[in-house]
């Protein structure tokens, strides 16, 4: 191996090592635990102050907003189409920013942020964004069929 190749190799290893280390730093800094409402409620101490991606179901009648500031509650979801159990664990969420178009009450959402005491402070709210492989929103077919039947009767 000639000296140029040696130098190159050392440079390459340094670059690769540096990138790996930076990646590790970033990941430990920016990683968010993806958990559900129940996961949090059963072990709150484990997640206090840590970055979280909390999955839950928005509780009907809890969304208050002035267009920019939002307050709502998410509950542990029983599954698609299953109503929230009366004793389901719930977490209030505070969010300031632009709400996705697709956000509404009574739907599955993921909120990203941190717990602040009893309230979850979200920096981002994600809904199941309508994508290429899905038509208009998930419940559309069901709703449309019901509506058509109601119109006829």
């Amino acid at each position, binding site marked *: 191996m000639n000296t140029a190749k040696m130098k190159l190799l050392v440079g390459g290893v340094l670059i690769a090592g540096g*990138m790996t280390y930076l990646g590790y730093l970033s*990941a430990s800094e920016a990683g968010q635990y993806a*958990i559900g409402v129940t996961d949090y409620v059963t072990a709150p101490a484990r997640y206090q102050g840590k970055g979280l991606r909390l999955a839950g179901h928005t509780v009907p009648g809890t969304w208050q907003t002035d267009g920019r500031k939002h307050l709502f509650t998410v509950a542990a979801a029983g599954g698609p189409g299953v109503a929230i159990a009366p004793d389901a664990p719930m977490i209030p969420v505070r969010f300031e920013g632009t709400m996705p178009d697709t956000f509404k009450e009574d739907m599955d959402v993921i909120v990203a942020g941190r717990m602040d005491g009893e309230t979850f402070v979200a920096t981002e709210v994600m809904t199941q964004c309508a994508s290429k492989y899905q038509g208009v*929103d998930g419940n559309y*077919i069901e709703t449309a069929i019901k509506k058509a039947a109601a119109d006829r009767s």
Partner: protein
Amino acid sequence: VTALDRLLGSILTPVLGGASVKLAFFLAVFGLVISIWGAVARREDMIRSGKRAAYAVWALLLLAVLCLERAMIRRDYSLEYVVEQIDNSMPLYYRITALWGGMNGSLLWWALICASFTAACLTVNRNRFKELMPWVTATCCYVLAFLGLLVSFVCDPFLPLSESDPALGFAQLLAQTGDGKGLNPLLQTYWMTIHPPSLYIGYIGFTIPFAFCIAALVTGKVDQEFLRATRRWTLLSWSVLGFGVMLGAKWAYEELGWGGYWGWDPVENASFMPWLVATGYVHSVIIQEKRGMLKGWNVFLILLTFLLTYFGTFLTRSGIVQSVHAFGSGPVGGLLAGFVLSLIVVCTYLVVIRHKILRAENEIEAVLSREATFLYNNVGLLGFMVMVFVGTMFPVFSEAVYEISNGSIGNGKVVVGPPFFNPLAAIITIGLLIMMGIGQLVAWRKTSGAAVRRNFTVPLLVTGVSWIFFLVVLPKEQLASLPFKFPNPWAVAVLVSSVFVIAGIVWEYWIGVRSVQSSHSQEIETAWKSGTRFSPEFLIASGITGSILGWGLASVVLATFPLWTRLVFGGAVGIASLAAAGALSGASRPAFNVMQAAVILFVRNRRRYGGYITHLGITLAIIGITASSLYKIDESHTFTEGETHKMGEFDLTFKGLELRREPGMWRVMAYMRMDKNGEKFGVAYPERRHHDKGDQPTTEVSIHESALRDYYLILEAAADKRIPGSPDKPATVTIRLLQSPLVTWFWFGGVLLLGGTALAAWPERKRKEVTVAVTSPGGVAVPEGAAAKEHP
């Protein structure tokens, strides 16, 4: 006619379409087998037969697409896919493009593009690469067979509604409402009509280099011929993929209404990863061409690029990674994983048995050489890809690690988002920019001290001056770690390294021009004497350059005027600069001399300077991304009717709410007047659309684009007594105003990327020997770029 039409629609279309995809699948399998057989047994007739099979697959898939298109255009609700994608209110335009709106149709479309690339490759190379071609046909047929299998038996777009899974509810929906489900409103936009095809062409185009790579490995001929065969296909796919990624960003920017264009979502990452690896390949392949090195590395990069395109597809269609996009799931994911796995096995086997011929013919001689900078760039690009890969797959990896270490499932899933990607991407990008800048200014093999001084002094001086300039000009921020205010260090680093790249391009070109002037002085003199005041190429170039500059100027001066005024203005400046160029070159001998030399240099080194235009495009895009991410001003305010409020540079007045009924939706539009410094700047109509289908409104933002700054208005909320559920009070709207600098540079950079690559890759005309005859007696007169010309 009607009876015939009905017959065609109800019987023939599903039958013919369904039959042709199935036949295409079997023919692709036949093509695969017969081509390999023919190549091994050296049977010409079998090889020919394989090629014909590939052509037939293309024809059958085309027929199938036409059948499906006919059903969609005619709203033939007897097919499940049509009910899913089409409804009664969709205009013709979206009924045509809804072909790639869903999983099944998009896979058929994908298969057709793949077959078209195969047919084009077979036609272009019909008399070339005799030994490689059967294996190329076989590889393409293998990919086509897989796609045919998916479209025929798993994701059948011709599935009759009567056979549709009742749980999906399509049949019931049609019976009850007499209407289809229809394309998602977010996808009913013109960007979605060009973004997916562009992305697909980019993705699928890599099939051809991949096929040649497999062929080269099988036959053991990883040589110049193999490079010639793959270079243009790779450049085409690479630039179109890059452009497609940018179009996707543009769609997100205009349609999703969150003010950004890139969120490191798995879907975006899936398209970005192959592009990064292919960027490495288009550079390292030059090293193999010039120096016979990196054969194995190049093979690895091509194989990886192609695998990543299918891995990306797997990622987006299997549901393995949770994303804000809802993906289809089902058997497709497993099949795609199996396909990718089969390719990995074949590729690994071929590389292992051919490792001897993949050894380099030469070794790197010096660290300060072009090949060394290319190598570092490759390491950086591959590292970038690995970073994106790790970030995308982080939830999967972290969960696996948790499960292994704790022995239980759950709660270990860690997701990373933009805070993970952004700083890493910035660091790597700065490194890549610096390498790009150095690479342009150093020679192959090694660079002498004199050449380093000649090439680097001026660009480094310019860079140094720009550094001071940015420190003074950029807005200062209070950094946590420093006692005084300082401009954002990321911005300074990116901008200064970008200046280094651009200064390098300009300086290198200037050195080249001077060199052509001296070496071609006689040729230029003859042209001058013979009355040739300018060459046609030069006129065209100056016209185009003038038009682009005029467009840029108009974007600043006429920012609020409609697009056509900017286009007209740009055209006018173009014509003016054309006239000026003509006059200037005719009037003054030295000016003619320089310009003629500049034209000669570009025309004779199109590959190199086309590449530099691409570099310029990438650099401008990076500047745009940096500026718009770091210096975005984001404000929000709730207006009552008639209220004026200062936001950013503007006094915004809410003049009233307009409600408009259009087919399939209600449009709620806020009429906003924008005043700047007491004068009217313009009006904006940010709106929300309430679609009859589903209860999700969509946001239509109002964007004022200009070369320096985009003004982006979002209607976040609207209340009015005419809107059900709104209070009986004066109308109110919540408006969010984003001021993002230099966003247009990103789009413009994307266009330059495409244009520069086209210039570099466009096939050369058979050059006449005459050009060699005019060289000076001293030796190489047509420099392959002046900076690179010195050899020891």
